[in-house]
């Protein structure tokens, strides 16, 4: 709109900005295409497909010490790059998964394990879900049992006066319905 009022220079500017948008959109698309490539480039450096597969599993299981909510595979912090390089080196040297795990834990602590070891300090972590499940089951069993008991206890006979009150109420309701409404209409509605 402004461009139309003020002539050539603005027009040119407007076209330019449109081209910019195209460029930005295109770069954004290209960038998206780039992301999977990061992993691929590194994987290619391992000598056998078996090692690559183990490497992929391992880097997903360790936590980046710096950026603590990412695993080594996701993180691009320098320390993660270093640790990935170390894991590749150890794999090529024929280290077992346990050895690699020991190597990392000796330097960065249990903290780097996304799958914590089962030991005294992690019993709470590992056992809590099982304990909660058992507790939940117990609660369900308890409630069901109580409902069963309640159901069997329910049909106790009404006392004489209660029976009379109930009868009176029922008759009253019946007579009101007869007075106020046409029976067909009540049924159809």
């Amino acid at each position, binding site marked *: 709109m402004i461009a139309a009022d003020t002539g050539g220079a603005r027009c040119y500017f407007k076209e330019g900005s449109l081209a910019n948008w195209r460029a930005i959109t295109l770069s954004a698309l290209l960038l998206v295409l780039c992301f999977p490539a990061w992993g691929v480039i590194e994987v290619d450096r391992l000598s056998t497909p078996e090692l690559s597969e183990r490497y992929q599993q391992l880097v997903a299981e360790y936590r980046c010490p*710096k950026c603590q909510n990412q695993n080594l595979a996701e993180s691009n912090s*320098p*320390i993660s790059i270093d640790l990935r390089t170390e894991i590749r080196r150890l794999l090529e040297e024929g280290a077992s998964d346990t050895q690699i795990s020991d190597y990392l834990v000796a*330097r*960065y602590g249990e903290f780097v394990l996304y799958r914590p070891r089962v030991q005294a300090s992690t019993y709470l972590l590992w056992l809590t879900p099982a304990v909660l499940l058992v507790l939940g089951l117990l609660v369900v069993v308890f409630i069901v049992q109580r409902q069963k008991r309640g159901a069997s206890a329910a049909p106790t006979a009404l006392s004489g006066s209660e029976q009379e009150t109930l009868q009176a109420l029922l008759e009253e309701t019946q007579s009101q319905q007869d007075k106020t409404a046409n029976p067909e209409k009540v049924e159809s509605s």
Partner: protein
Amino acid sequence: MERIKLFIPLIIFVVLAAMLYWGLGRDPNAMPSALISRPVPVFQLPALGGLNAGNTSAADNNATVADPGEVLDESIFLGQVSLLNVWATWCVSCRVEHPYLLDIAETGVRIIGLNYKDEVAAAQQWLAKYGDPYEQTIVDAKGALGLDLGVFGAPETYLVDHLGVIRYKHIGVVDDRVWRTSLQPRYQLLRDALPEADK
């Protein structure tokens, strides 16, 4: 029994509130070092002072290769209580803590520098420009010692006793508060425990 059941939600609330309150005061980034009570890893790395990287001419570079200067190993920690400070010129926080390190070095605290994944020339310029609080600076250009120490960023500061055993690690900037509340008390304890001859 019914009475007790009424209190169950309150009990759950109190326990949960206590746990969350306890969690509030904790630093989620605090990560205990795996090397506490373990000796400083074995290493053999050049000392920054001995490296002749200030000159960039080919002849000097050749001289540096032929004469790598002084080589440091883990024995530099023996006999004295030291701080091991991991730093680099690319690390902004290191610049922040640098003046404070100069201050505590002046009070007689022995600080060993670990120049982590840095360029020798830049590191030497930095020390010449801002002052050198380090008795020795280990050059760890590839970050190998850093990896063995469990370093995941700079600055980090380790407290090492006179037997070369790591006793404490502080992650992040050392400032007055950190020094007075966490590092200095531990440092003083180790100093006091030293045999008379080493003091």
